[in-house]
């Protein structure tokens, strides 16, 4: 059942030095250190009874830190267990995010069977295709935008309810695009073969690129938030989100770009390329946050989790990742990989 050489067993890919190489481990250690620092800060602030800080902000900060710990632990264990497990994990996250999205999106009874297939066939199928490897790029990159779209429209028509037809079709499709399609590009990074500046094969690990990507996008969120709180004056769109300002956007993007440039060593990029990729991540993360805020405003909720538990849902945590993932993947594939 098991092959004699442990190196060829995908379940223990962590033994394989090509997948979990030194830069990846260093990056994980850095993240672990950072998380420990912010955790201690959070605990210290909470213990301070006469703090000048708003208790709601402290609470939000601590819940965010908890979410990061969870994200880090799950991601690390998934990466240690190999590509397939990581893909399955992201599939689960998509499933849950879609659940939150559709829960807050009004659908009619005529959409019921469409939704059934969306959840139980097309979401797993997208991740199945991603897990089959980069050879299936041609299929998984159009499966949801084209075929699932056609399916949704036809299936709703078949159900016989024409009320607000285009609106319902668009809503379900939007959920699929944001929660499933876009996010599935994050684990797809693991299947790219990166190249060095001179065109030879890069012998680093794609796991560190995935890690780098998630770290940069999350950092982008944090930096934009900090800059907004610190020097933010000009709110970008007060009707959509009152906490996002131009100062936050520019300051945050600048800080994220610097961080991404400093961490260039774990990627196949050089300094300038790393700066460019982090800039893109920060801008796309911002776009994701704004888009999801707009959807939430329209539905009259503050967080995707409020309906169910009173704290932010999974979709609030991954909105920036969803928007940044396809762009980061495509740039990586076209410019830095041997898979074109």
């Amino acid at each position, binding site marked *: 059942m098991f092959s004699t050489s442990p190196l060829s067993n995908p379940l223990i890919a962590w033994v394989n030095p090509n997948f979990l190489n030194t830069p990846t481990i260093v990056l994980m250690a850095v993240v672990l250190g950072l998380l420990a620092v912010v955790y201690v800060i959070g605990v210290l602030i909470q213990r301070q009874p006469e703090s000048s800080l708003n208790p709601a902000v402290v609470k939000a900060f601590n819940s965010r830190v908890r979410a990061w710990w969870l994200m880090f632990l799950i991601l690390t264990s998934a990466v240690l267990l190999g590509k397939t497990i990581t893909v399955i994990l992201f599939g689960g996250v998509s499933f849950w995010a879609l659940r939150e999205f559709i829960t807050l999106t009004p659908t009619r009874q005529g959409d019921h*069977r469409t939704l*059934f297939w969306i959840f139980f066939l097309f979401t797993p199928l997208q991740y199945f295709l991603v897990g089959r490897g980069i050879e299936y790029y041609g299929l998984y990159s159009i499966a949801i935008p084209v075929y699932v779209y056609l399916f949704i429209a036809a299936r709703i028509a078949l159900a016989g309810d024409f009320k607000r037809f285009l609106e319902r079709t668009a809503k379900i499709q939007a959920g699929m695009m944001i929660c499933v399609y876009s996010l599935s590009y994050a684990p797809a990074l693991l299947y790219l073969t990166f190249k060095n500046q001179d065109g030879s094969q890069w012998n680093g690990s794609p796991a560190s690129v995935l890690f780098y990507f998630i770290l940069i996008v999350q950092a982008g969120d944090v930096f934009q938030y900090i800059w907004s709180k610190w020097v933010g004056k000009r709110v970008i769109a007060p009707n959509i989100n009152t906490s996002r300002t131009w100062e936050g956007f520019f300051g945050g993007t600048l800080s994220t770009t610097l961080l991404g440039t400093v961490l260039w060593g774990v990627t196949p990029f050089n300094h300038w390329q790393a700066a460019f990729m982090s800039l893109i991540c920060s801008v796309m993360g911002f776009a994701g946050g704004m888009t999801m805020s707009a959807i939430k405003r329209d539905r009259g909720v503050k967080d995707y989790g409020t309906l169910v*538990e009173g704290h932010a849902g999974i979709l609030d945590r991954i909105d920036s990742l969803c928007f940044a993932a396809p762009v980061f993947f495509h740039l990586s594939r076209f410019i830095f990989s041997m898979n074109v």
Partner: protein
Amino acid sequence: MQITVEILSFLAKLLSGASARWVDCNPDTCQRVYFANHTSHLDALVIWSSLPADVRRLTRPVAAKDYWDKGAIRRHVAKSFNALLIDRKEIKVHRSPVDLMIQEAGDTSSLIVFPEGGRSTTGELGEFKSGLYHLGKKRPDWELVPVHIDNLNRVLPRGEFLPVPLLSCITFGPPIWLEKGESKADFLSRAREAIIRLKEI
């Protein structure tokens, strides 16, 4: 029997993503009537599953005999949950459903009832049948707890058999009682309002 109960409530919780909220009301083993809006086949199962284990043991869903007495599987499920089956078709004068409920509940059990009498198709809360009023009149010591079920009609609507795993929410509200001299119509509309109010919270 026990296995059926465990598997079904696990599946129901997983599929409905139900979170239970207790608003001005706490789980208790005292005798209660949980009355809820009826939107889906899963309703009774999900309410029952969201109660704590010690309360669950004492709580019996009230269900329609014409539906749950058909076929071996339904009979088995009804029996596993210790459901109290009421005949909607043949209502006998000398043994009304309310008398049967009171007799079956004895001095320990609580009941889950759906005063609309059937599942609503629109998602709106329909008019209540008078059973709840008679229960409140004959057993004034029982707490009548309003329960609002949100979104479960989208998980498994009427006429569908495949569920869609959306997130639903069960809200338990503050108990009400029949006031002295309150008319049937007044009480029933007050009970109905009690459920509607939970929707806004």
